[in-house]
């Protein structure tokens, strides 16, 4: 029965993958509704769900947290069905795994594969990280852990998040206790390793599940698993520095979740303890909302898995992470509840499907209990290490899903997937229950396993180096074959985190003790070593780690989390993920609705999906970074990169192994390994590294901005906000207008604190620093200073540009802005700096269009003149003429401009130069730029029309060299100068001049008509734009 169910669900998923997307798109539209109204959401959900076959789930909708849970439970129940029967589960599993496996592969491969994507997502990622960290303070540990894992699989996220919630509740306890708990978990996970990890995963998911994300987890799980595996490997590698591992994990994303989360968790915990505590306080109501989101998010993850399409998955994943971050803020409350929920969940699961519930429950209990029962000797230190992490990570992950869920769209898809995911989770659970058997069975069952294997392999391989050592170490402790595999896995895990021989030996000692004790207790074979938390690291390093963790723990976690979502092992991503968490929390706080909008956008474009998610993450992350966290994250990130590489290579190797399973796999592996190879090429690495460093810096900035008022520096927050804003805008482009409308720009806007009046212009290459941005009052003074300044244009232009920048950065658009642009435009006109003028003009046009008062008529005239004289585009001219209001047409300057236009179009040079002499405002300046052309046209016209000669004084007068009235006394110096100039000009243009009897210069029209030419301008510059020549500028604008 169970099997049947499973297969059906799977099939449904596959078939629905397309539909799901579809649903997504539709959901996207609907999504906005969903967040706001649960009821509506439910409807939309149901519709989607119908497609997915999981209608019931959808129906429950999110009205309440409980509701979601129910839904999830329902899902879980289906999942549980699969799980209940171990064999059956396997089948289901196998099928599941197959789909998932590719994914898992993909995830690793993806990182490389998605490089392009990553870039986009990176920004967002980084932001999210920040968010993570923020939440992490309290939550971070949990969330971050889970996030990484959950990220990898969106579904897993949700589950993980939930778990964290539970954790926190449990964890609400002192951090130390928390840590202890976590460690046990890790241990158990470790022991099980491939199979176990899976189990854990499942458990994690199931736990999460209880929250409702289980389904998602299930679907995602397979992916997550692989990722997790990788993460583990990374983790181990990283483990040395718990924090560092965490970060590394983030880079791994999926895989890293477990390991990463743990470290971060641990660290985060201690720090976060206070924070976590707060979350519990939040009342149920808050819970509900957050939960709902979570549930939806969980659904989303599931959807992704169901999506079948890698790209879709990625998108989902990404979404998941962001949400997770978002959730964090909200989630904290959840966490408190989670504990309750967990229990309830268990009960739910039980009720729904006894088998299922049992599997999950056991796992659950294990996970839940694990923290409590296993008293890890050294609290925190041990945490950082892989085992403990996994659990926390899982928990944390769930929160993310929650946020996700908030976007209704995701939820729908999730529902369908949930089913699949749920099943998977159960499988793992079963496996865990079965213990060692699972791993083997998976491999044996080629069909099912084949898909799963890759993930598996990767998991088991965690770190080549570490493993070797750890396995060797394990061997030394345990004689192979004598102990349960799960135990062995546990030992390996424990050893893998050892940095040096010293630690190794110390760990071995501790473990021997543990094993002896367990043997004495008789629990050696009964204990779930997969779930068992790792004991704290026994050596001096621990303290170090602790410090790092406390400061950096959050960030590493975040990093891990970030990575996990994308599953990108590549270094590039690592930095980004960090950023994401950080930034995410804020955004979450501000706008859940926005998110939904984003999601919608995502749905529309799958490609954009990734971006969007990233952006979401970013937006979410905004919030708070603690500087400490930032620092830690930086360190961590660097390390992770290397580890990731290892993992990549590892994975590639794994792929090779698994390829034999089936043709499909082979092709897949080949594909991925190719991607991996690409990813691993030295140049790629270098590039990624440098990029990741860049991001780290950013993250650091972002980290400073913590919503948590305790540490948050205003400037820092501004940074992160800014970064998110950028991400958002990017998203906007991709996602369409809707999302942007929802962005709370006010919350992102920098408020300057700089009091300096004078400031040099520097093109921003990063988010603006409020310390160097002048507030409006100061900007006003600066404008006055520039206006009254006697310095040259270069100086003024520089000053005005910096003023403009400050205004733009602070989004100040009012009369002052208009004044600044007008001032600059006029100055630019005076010196003929057209490019600068055009910038100002276009800004002014939009400012005027917003109804801001200014000299809009004056500038309408300039605009007209500009079109007439310099663009020579009839259509533009007609359209700008037709836009003129009657009032404008009566304006002197505009009238003048229109008259100039008429003169130019008819070639009436007499009129043109008269207008030139009487031009109001700065119209002269614009006309001045056209004078040369007009004179040349005029002379060529004259030389054709006049016979036999034409007196030069007349030409000089008509062409504006001398004053208008020629009869004036010729003694006028000005006129004679003008005459000289005219003669010079005519000669320079090839005119034939003769002197008549009276000594007056005459233009020989006939001969001139054939010799006239346009000389090369003297001030021609190589790049063709004379106005760009600095020397020319200086001469023209010299003081």
């Amino acid at each position, binding site marked *: 029965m169970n099997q049947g169910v499973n297969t059906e669900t799977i099939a449904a998923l596959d078939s629905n993958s397309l539909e799901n997307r579809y649903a997504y798109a539709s959901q996207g539209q609907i999504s906005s509704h969903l967040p706001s109204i649960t009821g509506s959401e439910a409807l939309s959900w149901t519709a989607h769900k119908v497609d997915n076959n999981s209608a019931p789930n959808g129906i429950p909708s999110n009205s309440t947290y409980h509701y979601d849970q129910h839904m999830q439970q329902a899902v879980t129940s289906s999942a549980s069905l699969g799980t209940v029967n171990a064999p059956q589960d396997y089948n289901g599993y196998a099928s599941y795994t197959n789909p998932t496996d590719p994914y898992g592969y993909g995830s690793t491969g993806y990182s490389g594969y998605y490089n392009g994507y990553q870039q986009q997502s990176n920004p967002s990622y980084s932001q999210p990280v920040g968010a993570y960290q923020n939440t992490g303070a309290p939550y971070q540990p949990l969330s971050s852990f889970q996030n990484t894992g959950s990220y990898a699989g969106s579904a897993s996220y949700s589950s993980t998040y939930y778990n964290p919630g539970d954790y926190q509740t449990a964890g609400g306890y002192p951090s130390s206790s928390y840590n202890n708990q976590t460690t046990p978990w890790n241990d158990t996970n470790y022991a099980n390793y491939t199979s176990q990890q899976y189990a854990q995963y499942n458990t994690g998911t199931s736990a999460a599940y209880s929250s409702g994300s289980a389904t998602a987890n299930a679907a995602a799980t397979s992916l997550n698993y692989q990722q997790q595996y990788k993460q583990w490997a990374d983790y181990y590698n990283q483990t040395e520095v718990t924090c560092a591992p965490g970060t590394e994990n983030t880079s791994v994303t999926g895989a890293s979740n477990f390991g990463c989360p743990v470290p971060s968790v641990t660290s985060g915990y201690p720090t976060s303890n206070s924070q976590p505590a707060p979350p519990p306080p939040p009342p149920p109501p808050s819970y509900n909302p957050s939960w709902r989101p979570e549930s939806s998010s969980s659904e989303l993850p599931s959807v992704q898995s169901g999506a079948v399409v890698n790209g879709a998955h990625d998108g989902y994943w990404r979404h998941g992470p962001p949400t997770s971050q978002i959730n964090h803020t909200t989630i904290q409350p959840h966490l408190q509840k989670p504990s309750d929920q967990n229990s309830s969940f268990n009960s739910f699961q039980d009720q729904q499907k006894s088998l299922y519930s049992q599997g999950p429950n056991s796992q659950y209990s294990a996970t839940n209990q694990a923290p409590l029962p296993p008293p890890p000797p050294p609290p925190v230190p041990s945490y950082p290490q892989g085992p403990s992490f996994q659990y926390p990570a899982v928990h944390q992950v769930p929160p993310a899903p929650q946020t996700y869920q908030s976007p209704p769209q995701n939820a729908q898809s999730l529902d369908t997937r949930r089913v699949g995911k749920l099943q998977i989770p159960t499988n793992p659970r079963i496996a865990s229950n079965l213990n060692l058997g699972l791993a083997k069975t998976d491999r044996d069952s080629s069909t099912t396993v084949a898909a799963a294997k890759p993930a598996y392999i990767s998991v088991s391989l965690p770190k080549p180096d570490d493993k070797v050592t750890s396995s060797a170490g394990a061997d030394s402790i345990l004689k192979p074959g004598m102990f349960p595999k799960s135990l062995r896995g546990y030992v390996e895990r424990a050893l893998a985190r050892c940095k040096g021989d010293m630690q190794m030996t110390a760990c071995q000692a501790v473990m021997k003790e543990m094993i002896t004790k367990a043997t004495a207790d008789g629990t050696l074979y009964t204990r779930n070593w997969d779930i068992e938390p790792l004991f704290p690291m026994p050596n001096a390093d621990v303290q170090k780690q602790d410090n790092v963790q406390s400061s950096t723990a959050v960030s590493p976690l975040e990093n891990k989390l970030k990575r996990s979502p994308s599953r990108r092992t590549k270094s590039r991503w690592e930095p980004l993920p960090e950023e994401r968490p950080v930034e995410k929390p804020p955004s979450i706080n501000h706008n859940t609705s926005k998110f939904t909008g984003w999601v919608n956008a995502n749905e529309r474009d799958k490609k954009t999906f990734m971006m969007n998610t990233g952006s979401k993450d970013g937006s979410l992350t905004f919030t708070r970074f603690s500087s400490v966290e930032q620092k830690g994250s930086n360190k961590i990130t660097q390390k992770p990169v290397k580890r990731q590489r290892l993992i990549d290579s590892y994975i590639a190797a794994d792929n090779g192994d698994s390829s034999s399973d089936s043709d499909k796999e082979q092709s897949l592996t080949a594909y991925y390994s190719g991607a991996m190879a690409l990813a691993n090429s030295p140049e790629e690495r270098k590039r990624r590294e440098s990029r990741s460093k860049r991001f780290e810096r950013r993250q650091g900035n972002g980290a400073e901005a913590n919503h948590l008022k305790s540490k948050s520096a205003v400037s820092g927050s501004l940074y992160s906000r800014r970064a998110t804003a950028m991400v958002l805008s990017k998203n906007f482009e991709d996602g369409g207008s809707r999302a942007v409308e929802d962005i709370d720009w006010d919350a992102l806007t920098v408020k300057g604190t700089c009091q300096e009046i004078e400031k040099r212009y520097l093109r921003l290459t990063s988010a603006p620093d409020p310390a160097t941005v002048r507030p409006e009052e100061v900007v006003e003074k600066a404008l006055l200073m520039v206006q009254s300044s006697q310095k040259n244009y270069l100086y003024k232009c520089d000053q005005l540009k910096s003023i403009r920048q400050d205004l733009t950065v602070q989004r100040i658009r009012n009369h002052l802005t208009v004044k600044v642009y007008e001032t600059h435009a006029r100055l630019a006109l005076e010196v003929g700096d057209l490019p600068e003028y055009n910038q100002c003009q276009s800004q002014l046009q939009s400012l005027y269009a917003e109804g801001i008062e200014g000299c809009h008529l004056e500038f309408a005239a300039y605009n007209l003149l500009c079109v007439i004289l310099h663009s020579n585009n009839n259509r533009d001219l007609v359209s700008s003429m037709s836009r003129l209001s009657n009032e404008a047409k009566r304006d002197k300057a505009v009238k003048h401009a229109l008259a100039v236009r008429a003169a130019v179009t*008819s070639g*009436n040079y*007499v009129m043109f130069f008269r207008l030139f002499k009487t031009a109001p405002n700065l119209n002269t300046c614009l006309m001045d730029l056209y004078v040369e052309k007009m004179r040349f046209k005029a002379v060529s016209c004259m030389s054709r029309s006049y016979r036999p000669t*034409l007196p030069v004084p007349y030409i000089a007068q008509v062409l504006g060299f001398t004053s208008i009235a020629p009869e004036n006394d010729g003694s006028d110096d000005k006129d004679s100068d003008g005459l000289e100039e005219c003669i010079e000009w005519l000669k320079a243009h090839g005119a034939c001049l003769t002197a008549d009897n009276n000594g007056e210069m005459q233009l020989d029209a006939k001969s001139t008509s054939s010799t006239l030419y346009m000389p090369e301008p003297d001030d021609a510059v190589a790049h063709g734009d004379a106005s760009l020549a600095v020397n020319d500028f200086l001469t023209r604008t010299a003081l």
Partner: protein
Amino acid sequence: MAYISMGEAHRRITDYLNRFYDAVSYQDGASLKVLLSLSSNSPSLLSLADALNLYQDASRLIKQSDNYSQLAEILLPLFRALQNYRLANLIDSYQAFEKSANAFIQEFRNWDSAWALEALYVVAYEIRVLAEKADRELVSSGKPPEKLKAAGSFLMKVFGVLAGKGTKRVGALYVTCQLFKIYFKLGTVHLCRSVIRSIETARIFDFEEFPRRDKVTYMYYTGRLEVFNENFPAADHKLSYALNHCNPQSEANIRKILKYLIPVKLSIGILPKDWLLEKYNLVEYRNVVQALKRGDLRLLRRALQDHEDRFLRSGVYLVLEKLELQVYQRLIKKIYIIQKQKDPNKAHQLKLEIIVKALKWLEMDMDLDEVECIVAILIFKNLVKGYFAHKSKVVVLSKQDPFPKLNGKPVNS
């Protein structure tokens, strides 16, 4: 709205589905076209929309039968579009219709023959019309209109489907014309260029093989483009082609063509008969023509001023303004004729003062320098043959044909 029973609603929907399926399976483009024509407001579609609004679960009906479910991607959004259209929810209607149209294009691509061209025309037309309506709705709710732009890019896609293929290529020009309409409406005329290039450079397909309707529309729009570019001979050619091939019954279309053709013809020295202006209600040109005939600068300026908005909107303002030189030419020619009657021997020497005086009578306040400049320009542009003697302020006209006629050639610049 009359009450419909559930059964009736069901019947209507299944009826529609049957007809749709039959049209597709029998490759009956004509009946398919009717079924897609959203904005035709045909009673059958309206009643179907009512039925859909009543009977919410139409998707189930579609999925029940294999026949329909093949077309579900087209039908489902189409139903949604219909429903929303009926509810005057045009933005949603547009979005759904675009989805449906996308699916339709997919199908269309797979059909070997061009039997569904008629239906495709309807889709292209509907999507443009719906987008315009949706944009109006957007604007009225204070949002930026964007649907027409989206329709433009959709039609570009359609164009891509049609442009290369043999039998389907016949449809390319229709889509091009719809695109023109969109681009002209949006003011993004520069986007026309790529489409035009692909139409005009394809040697495989003779332009004359396109349907006449499309040819006329195409020539009309490209002619307008040439008017903007002030390429009068080309504009004359295209617009004349459109006029000659236009259905003489559709006076509105003829009027549209004439609106641009008349200024073009004026610029090359060909004046319309007065009855033509009367017949097609283009009286705004009457004074312009009169001014040209009489050399009455004042009248021309007044005519331009009176209809400034209209001329600016249609984009012929600058073209008409350039007629000024011809009016000057006419005026000087009249002076010349009068002088010739008085004293044939000195007729070819025109004193500048006389011209200034003539302009004064027309209440044109211009001084000697200005008029001298005008005359210089007239000579320069070859509207007047002769030369100007600055010292004596006299225009010396050529004794042979001092005022050459344009004869279909534009004023050279």
